[in-house]
């Protein structure tokens, strides 16, 4: 009954912001310090504009096929064989991304929260939570995301606490001092932090409001995510001085350290678990779509969810074995994500216009 229930506007919005907000933001001030420095926020806004451009193109493609899932759409445009190959690439991307999120999150948790816990155990716990949710339908998933979005709101509230710290607005000036080339380099880094928007491709067919409303919702969610990213980055830049940002791998977590209260001494220890849950949960969406390649009976799809979960866990164990294996892994993921996020949708859009393929409303 609820399996066919479409996703409402607000559900879509909350789902997208949680998939898009990731661990990237926590590292971002540090990585930007190497390139764009205090102009990092310009890079993020430019990256946001790039994302906006891409999602408009996605929308142009998707609105031509309102009822087809993304996997069906590739086959429709490119034919069964070529479409199949593309689908395999997309599938690999989904699995690799979910593994990457799992590795990144378990690393972060290990570094900040649980120094002595083994990697495999942390990863197992996080993945188990995801698989438990994943083995239901999309409607349940978005409902859970709606509730979990409270934790993002809570994190934003926590960040207000940092206003009580000494703020050095001069850290941001002079604007544009790092030069155009550095800002562009920073753009590339910020773009990585904004990944997750590609999930739009899979959501169109399940959304209740299509057409212009859909575009509006995805635009708002993108603006929201970019705003949060800029906000947190700017806070980190004005609270911590450049030398500290250079030293600290996780500036946004550590900027809470100087805060003390009579009952709680370390806000960052509360910040991180709250942050990690919605972030880790974005794995659910990736594994869900990887498992629902074909629309078969729900029971059978659950079976795929467990298999994909097992694959992700094995990959997680292999990739997090050493730093070299992780680097190798990141390299592969990087190249495949360029293909899946940018190239494949453009090819599809191009072909759908050239071949004049469009879904006829019946």
């Amino acid at each position, binding site marked *: 009954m609820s399996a066919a229930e479409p996703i409402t506007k607000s559900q879509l919005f909350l789902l997208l912001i949680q998939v898009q907000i990731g661990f990237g933001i926590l590292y971002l001030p540090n990585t930007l310090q190497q390139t764009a420095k205090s102009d990092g926020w310009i890079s993020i806004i430019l990256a946001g504009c790039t994302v906006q451009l891409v999602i408009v193109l996605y929308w142009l493609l998707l609105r031509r096929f309102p009822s087809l899932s993304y996997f069906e759409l590739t086959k429709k445009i490119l034919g069964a064989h070529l479409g199949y190959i593309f689908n395999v690439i997309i599938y690999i991307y989904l699995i690799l991304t979910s593994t990457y999120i799992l590795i990144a999150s378990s690393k972060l948790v290990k570094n900040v929260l649980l120094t002595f816990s083994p990697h495999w155990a942390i990863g197992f716990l996080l993945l188990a939570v995801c698989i438990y949710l994943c083995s239901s339908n999309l409607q349940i998933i978005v409902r859970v995301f709606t509730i979990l979005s409270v934790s993002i709101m809570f994190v934003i509230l926590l960040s207000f606490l940092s206003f009580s710290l000494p703020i050095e607005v001069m850290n941001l000036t002079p604007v544009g001092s790092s030069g155009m080339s550095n800002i562009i380099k920073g753009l590339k880094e910020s773009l990585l932090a904004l990944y997750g928007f590609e999930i739009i491709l899979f959501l169109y067919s399940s959304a209740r409001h299509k057409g212009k409303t859909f575009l509006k919702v995805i635009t708002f969610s993108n603006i929201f995510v970019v705003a949060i990213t800029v906000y947190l980055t700017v806070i980190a830049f004005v609270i911590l001085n450049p030398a500290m940002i250079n030293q600290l791998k996780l500036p946004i977590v550590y900027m809470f350290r100087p805060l003390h209260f009579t009952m709680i001494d370390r806000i960052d220890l509360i910040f991180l*678990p709250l942050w990690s849950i919605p972030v880790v949960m974005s794995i659910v969406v990736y594994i869900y779509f990887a498992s629902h390649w074909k629309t078969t009976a729900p029971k059978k799809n659950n079976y795929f969810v467990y298999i994909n979960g097992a694959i992700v866990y094995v990959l997680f164990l292999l990739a997090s074995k050493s730093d070299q294996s992780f680097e190798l892994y990141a390299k592969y993921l990087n190249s495949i994500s360029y293909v899946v996020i940018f190239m494949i949708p453009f090819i599809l859009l191009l072909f759908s216009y050239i071949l004049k393929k469009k879904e006829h409303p019946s």
Partner: protein
Amino acid sequence: MPSKRPSSTYDINIKVDLIKKAMFQSDDIKTRTLYIQEMQCICIYLDSMVDKSSFEKNVFDPILHFFNSEHLKKIHKSDIFHRISSIIQSAEIKTEQKTQDIVQSLRHGNLILLIPGEKKAIIIPVPNTQNRTIAEPENEKIIKGSRDGFTEDLNTNVFLLQKRNKHENLVTKNFTVGRKAQTEARLLYIEDLVDHEVLKEIVSRLRNIKANKIQSSGELEEQIEDNSYTVFPQVLSTERPDRAQAYLSEGKIVLILDENPQVLVLPVTFFSFYQSPDDYNNRWFVGTFFRIIRLVSFIIAIILPSLYISVVSFHTEILPLGLLYALRVQTEFVPLTPFFEAITMQVVLELLKEASIRLPSPIAQTIGVVGGLVIGTAVVEAGLVSNVMIVVIALTAIASFVAPVNQMGTGVRLLAFPFMILSNTFGFLGLTASFTLLIIHLCKLKSFDRPYFYPLSPLDINGIKDSFVRSKK
């Protein structure tokens, strides 16, 4: 007269023997002979199941008075049967032929009248009704509100609801549940308000019950609920007619099982278990305050022990120095780890609770004093458990007892254990992970195909107005 016994009397004597045989010569079966126009008729009944004064007054007197009056002409034999049916002052007279059915109705407190020459037996209901009076239920007390409660009698229970619904289209449907021993059940709903899809689902589930015998509403609940692998009750059972009525007028369905004062309300949501009829008798912001307090109690009951465990065993740095010192001094010499400390104290608490439930109340008070005060202080002074842990466990217990419906409180206390285990393994991450698992679980749960965690999932702002707060009407 015995010398010329008509052959038909043999019939009924054989029949009586058959019935007695079918009931294994139970000594409870009593027979009584009465003569109608010189015919020997036999009455059979179960001594314990019938109301004797009622059958003297309503059955025998009319029959004897009618047939033995002098100005009555001799009625034809075949007509007697119909006459008897018409003169007996009883509501539902039936006739049965098969011995099996006769035995069944005998067991239900009926009087069987056998007339010679008639194949069918007349079944006259004269049940012995020994009912508890309507009284306020012990386990669901309220401060303001009506004082009646459901009893073990099915009809009384229906009556209690019916009289509250004089102006609505209250519909009652009869069911029997259980394959072998059939128990009567009644399904009540208000026609204009009920969700017919849910109604259809419930009816089909009631019809498909596989169990041989269902005696308590708890068993019935287990047979019809959606998911048995959860601590959350998906059916609300109550002994309060006002609570059942409140749900009826919300379009819910009420299921009453014979011999059970607990009435089932379905489908329900999680938040139904944290509402009380009291809320509507108070000023609306008082009601709202208590509702919020109850929901907070739910969260306290499940996360407080695990929060304490994860702080003490993983993240002591979160505490400021003064508090950390105070805590360390206490926990330093405690032989158990915080996790085992918490588990032990929870178990001790359950022991105390379990012990005091069954005991008569004067002794139960002693248990309270010995358990709560003596053991509580002594265990700390002996250095076995830290003071803070006692505070944490006591608060948890109190918070779990806040739930107005007992089923939920117990479920919540059980739920605290997996939370503690995960927090003991992963600290704060375990706590957030288990909380997330809980939310996922609640979102996945359904009560008769309706979302259990409504109005939070799916989110409905208007629905929240009446589950979290008690909005003004």
